[in-house]
Every structure is written in C-alpha cells, then in structure tokens.
C-alpha cells in the first residue's frame, strides 16, 4: 500500500466540497440522520451515482455521456488497512489452532468439559459443539493435532495481541475512533440498517464513514478481541494470573467465555463478509487502497476527520 504522507493534502484539494451548502451538509451529517433521504446511500458502497445527478445538477460536466460529480475520498488510513489485513490471517490461525486444541478433550471417554459447550435449555440440547462431522470431513481433519494447535496458538497469540494493541493505539492517536465508537443514535440507526437489509424498509440513514450498525459491530469486535486476550491469559496461566481467572469465574468458566467469544468472531466474520459482498467493489477496494469514489455531494469523511 502506498505512502500515506502525501495523500491527505492531495485528497483535500481534490475532493473539497466547494459550496458552503456542502460543508454545512458535512457538519450536519450526524444530525441529519433522521430524515434518511430515500435515495442517499446504500450501506457502504455501490454508489447510485446517477441518482445523485438529479439531486444537484447545477455544476456538472458531461463525462462519458453521463453527468456526475465524483470525489476520491480518503476513507481508511494506511495503518488501519495494514492492521485490518494482518489481523485476518492471524485471527484465522488463532481460531483454527484453537479448534485443534478444543478437539483434544472430545477425544476422551469422560467428555466432561464439552458438556457445557452446547446450545440448549436444561436437558434439551439443540446443538453440541461440535458434532463429529465437524471434526473430520472431506475438507479438514482436526483430530490428533493438538501439539500443532498449541504451538501455533501460543506463537500467534503474540501477533494477535501486538496487532490489536497497535490498532487501538492508532485509533486513539489518530482520533479515528470518533468514526467508530457508537453514538447515542447508533442503536436506532443499526435497527434501521438491519430493517433495510431485511428488505423491510427503504432508505439507509446518512453516514460519513460508518453507520450505526457498523459502529456497534466494529467497536464490539475490538472489545471481543480484548476479551479473548484476557480470557485466554486466564486459561493459559491460571496460576500465574489466578486473580484474573478468579475474576472471570474460574478456570472452566474462563474456557467457556473464551469459547463463546470465538463463536462470536465467527459470527462477526460471516456477517462482515456478507455485508462487504453486498456493499460492493468500491467499498471493498477502499479497504485495500484507502480511497473510495463518492459523489462529491456526500458528507466528506476527510472534512469530518480534520475537525476531530
């Protein structure tokens, strides 16, 4: 990915909204959520550029037979992109090696701890983690690889932790966290976004970088990452860090929490990838290149960023 240093200024010049009304719009973006303009923005990409042409045709020049006013918006800073993509294989390795470790106790006549890893009420179990086909099937076989699992888990935990700490540190230092931390209206927005995704509603709330659903999801997953580190430490070093293990409810409880956090990551991953697919190329590309093509009339991320 390219050097970041030169880009902000460049970006500013190129994309700076020229009319007072647009700057106003940027400032008001947060307040303007209520009147979710029907045709404004899908969740985070795939821009209906042509729609917007009609909205404000004043200073458009004809391009390739259609009129539009495009801006190249700096969406994701370089550091965030790197750490996001580093985290992907690292977290995958943690989950995969964790599964190798987890299996180890199912290969046991007692099968005691696994009794609690289930979905069910009382004596009714709907699903047990995991059925046999999950451990061994045509695609993978996770049995009898516990030493590989332990080896990778306790190597990659460092990469996961370091990357996570750097990520949070960068968010704080760069103030990008202000795009990410849920706001008072985020829950309402998240419900609206969900309704739109379920085709029960039309018109997404206006957003700058992230909508309410994204704010909640991305912030939660960071807290979950911290949770995995903390519960993981409580399991890995229940004597050295016994105070922590005790706070988490004991050794078995910490294992249980660690397990469900992992399931949470998997659920996050599925929804995240699904939404990225729905949002489309322009949005996905911005996580690689950092830049997104947006109608110039949109509230500018960069303008907002500068005000932090």
């Amino acid at each position, binding site marked *: *990915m*390219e050097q970041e240093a030169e880009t902000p200024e460049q970006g500013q010049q*190129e994309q700076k909204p*020229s009319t007072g009304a647009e700057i106003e719009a940027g400032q008001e973006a947060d307040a303007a959520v209520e009147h979710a303009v029907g045709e404004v923005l899908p969740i985070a990409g795939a821009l209906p550029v042509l729609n917007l042409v009609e909205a404000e045709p004043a*200073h458009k*020049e004809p*391009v*390739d037979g259609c009129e*539009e*006013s*495009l*801006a*190249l918006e700096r969406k994701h800073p370089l550091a965030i992109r790197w750490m996001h*993509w*580093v985290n992907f*294989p690292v977290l995958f*390795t943690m989950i995969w090696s964790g599964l190798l*470790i*987890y299996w*180890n*106790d*199912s*290969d*046991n*006549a*007692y*099968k*005691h*701890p696994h009794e609690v890893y289930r979905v069910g009420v009382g004596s009714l179990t709907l699903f047990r983690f995991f059925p*046999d086909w999950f*451990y*061994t099937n045509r695609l993978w076989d996770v*049995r*009898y*690889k*516990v*030493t*590989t699992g*332990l*080896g*990778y888990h*306790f*190597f990659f935990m460092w990469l996961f932790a370091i990357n996570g700490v750097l990520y949070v540190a960068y968010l704080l230092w760069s103030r990008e966290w202000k795009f990410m931390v849920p706001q008072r209206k985020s829950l309402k927005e998240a419900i609206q976004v969900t309704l739109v995704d379920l085709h029960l509603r039309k018109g997404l709330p206006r957003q700058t970088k992230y909508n309410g659903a994204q704010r909640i999801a991305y912030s939660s997953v960071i807290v979950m990452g911290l949770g995995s580190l903390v519960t993981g430490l409580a399991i*890995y*070093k229940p*004597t*050295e*860090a*016994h105070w922590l*293990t*005790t706070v988490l409810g004991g*050794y*078995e409880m910490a*294992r249980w929490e660690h397990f469900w956090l992992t399931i949470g990551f998997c659920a996050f991953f599925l929804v995240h990838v699904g939404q990225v697919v729905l949002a489309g190329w322009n949005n996905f590309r911005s996580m*690689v*290149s*950092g*830049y997104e*093509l947006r109608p*110039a009339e949109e509230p500018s991320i960069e303008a907002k960023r500068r005000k932090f």
Partner: protein
Amino acid sequence: MKHADEVKRESGRRTRRSFLVGAAGVVGGYEFYRWIDRANGDQLLPYPLRKALNLNGKVFGEGALAPTYDVSKSVELRINGNYGLKQDLVPESYRLQVVGVEGAEKRPGYVADVTAWDYKYVAERAKYEGHDTKVAPKDAGGPAAGQATQKPGGNAGSAKDMNKGAATGDKTQAMPVAKPDGGAQAVGPDAPPKEGPGPQMTPEFEKAFAAYREARKDKPERGQEEAGESDSTLDPNTPGLLLTMEDVLKLPKQELVTQFKCIEGWSEIVHWGGVRLRDFIAAYPPARNDKGELPKYVYMETPNGDYYTGYELSECMHPQSLLATEMAGKPLAQMHGAPLRLHMPIKYGYKQIKRIGLIAYTDTKPDDYWTKLGYDWYAGL
C-alpha cells in the same frame, strides 16, 4: 471540481498500486506461514513454535502460588494415562533412586550403582478397566472409533490414551521411534540406536552401545511407550542413594487442595497429602558442579523408565510442589502413582509424574516424555 474521469484515473492508479502491494503482502504472509510449518522439527514441533513455547515459559514465569480450595470441593482425580504403571509394583520392593546429591557417599542409602536395584512387579498386568482410553467405551461410533484402526494394537494400545493427541498427528510419521504396533519393541535395548537406519555409527559408538546392551542384558526393557526411551535415563553404574518410603516420610507432612489441570482441557480439584519437594531437596541437596553452581535441572522417571519428566530446579523449589503420598485423605492407589508421585499446581498434569523411581539433579536439560512428542517443556500454568 475535478473532472470525473480524472478522478477515476487517479482512483485506478491508487487501486493498481495498492493491490500490488497487497499481493506482495499475501505472498509474504504465506511464505511466513510456510517458513514455520516447514521449519525443522525440534522434538516434533517446528522450531519457531518450540522457541515461542520456551520464550513463553520464561516470559510468564512460575512464581505465583496456585489458589487453594476447601477440602469439600475436592474429588478423587480421574485416572488418565498409565505409562510406567502397567504392572503393579510390589510395595516392599520400592526404593527412590536419588542421583547427584551432595556428599552422597557419606549418606545412608548410598550405593555404587542405583540402576542395579531390582523393582518387583506383580506378575499379572494391572487389571485396569477404568477411563483410561481415548476410545469411549459406550461411544463406539464416534470419530475415536474410526481412528482405532490407526492405534497401536494390543493391550498397550487401548490404554495409550493421551498420547494419541500428539502421536497420531501428521508429524508422527517422521518420528523414528513411534510406530503403531511394535513401535515399543523397536526401542528396546536390542534395537538399533534411535536414529534408526540413518548414518553409520562410528566403531566407538557401536562398541559403547554393545557394552550398554551387555550391561542391561537381564534388565526389563525400558521406554516402551511412544516417546521411546529417555535420553536422560541413567547409565549403568551410576552411584546414588536408594531411599525407602520411611526416609521420605521423615520430612514434614503437607496437605494441599488445588486444581489439577490436564492439557486435554479438563480440571479437577484434588486433595493431596505428602511432603514438599523443597523440603526433600533441602534434606538431599544437589551437589554443586565444577564451577560451584547448583545444577539447573531435575529429572524424574518411573522405575521402569517408561515415563519421564524434566524440571528446572527453581520450579521444584516452589512451595506447592509436592511429593504426594496421599490423595483424598487415603494412600495413593497404584494407578495414581503409589507410593510416590508429583503434584505441581504450577504445571499441567503431564508433568506430575506418577510412581517416581528416580530423582536426579543434572546440568543438562533432561528429556521429557510429552515434550518429545511435541508438547511444551515448561507446561507452566
């Protein structure tokens, strides 16, 4: 306002550049993963992973005290693993071999060759029908049953429980000593050295090995489990002490209710009784080496050498490291390691060796059964 196709060109430039860098990143990441996965094995674990485990052992240390519990919460520990215990030991024939003790010659119990001591076993193999197998008795249809065909056959096979975790992994095939069926036989004294059909040994080695075999001629075979014989096992004619349980029980008695944790993923609170290892070490202190330093390590093994463990001396000095003689207020059962086993709440169960036959102080990092099969040497909690 910029021209839209200018903006698009700019976007294209950025896209191409960043995706190239991204592709390089993917290749780099993949190479990193391959470097680990294909690295030379250090005791069945790629050495970067082994190094990380050793580093973690140092980083986290083992100084803290494990939490203790009320006796009412304790249970009798489940039996899990029977290496070195497959035959009941005749209690009267038990002696604890101690090697490397300061001024050993002047102490009672000194013998010129501790390895000459003959442990007596009840002829019949210990009848043990408990939960000591990975194959669930009532769950023949599970994945474990499918695996059973790959298991070492015979009686020993069905009892080899936790070793499957390491040994049937994909790396196992590379392990020279662990072959299903007869693998145990291949590592007896009559077998070729562990390197197997590797490079030719020097005549000196062949000679020394022949002498070793001669010396062990009428001794039972050792190291019959998957990890094979320990490299740290004593050479014949090693002088040391032969202690009786009476000697051991002269030390102050200590009780402890702690949580026992198995690397398989389960844990149980257990009530232990015995003597503290640090008291034992104080009573039988290690001899200093030529440089005047204390030895760094302690090595233990079962009387038949089938199971063996290594520790740092400092870990043995931990106040909760216990030479256990009792569990749940009763003398230890044979399958729990009677008459003497180790309990170390700062370590996983696989370091808590049952039926200790030898305690040796050494400056060389000792062999360790599960470490040899790819597990962490420290196993610290």
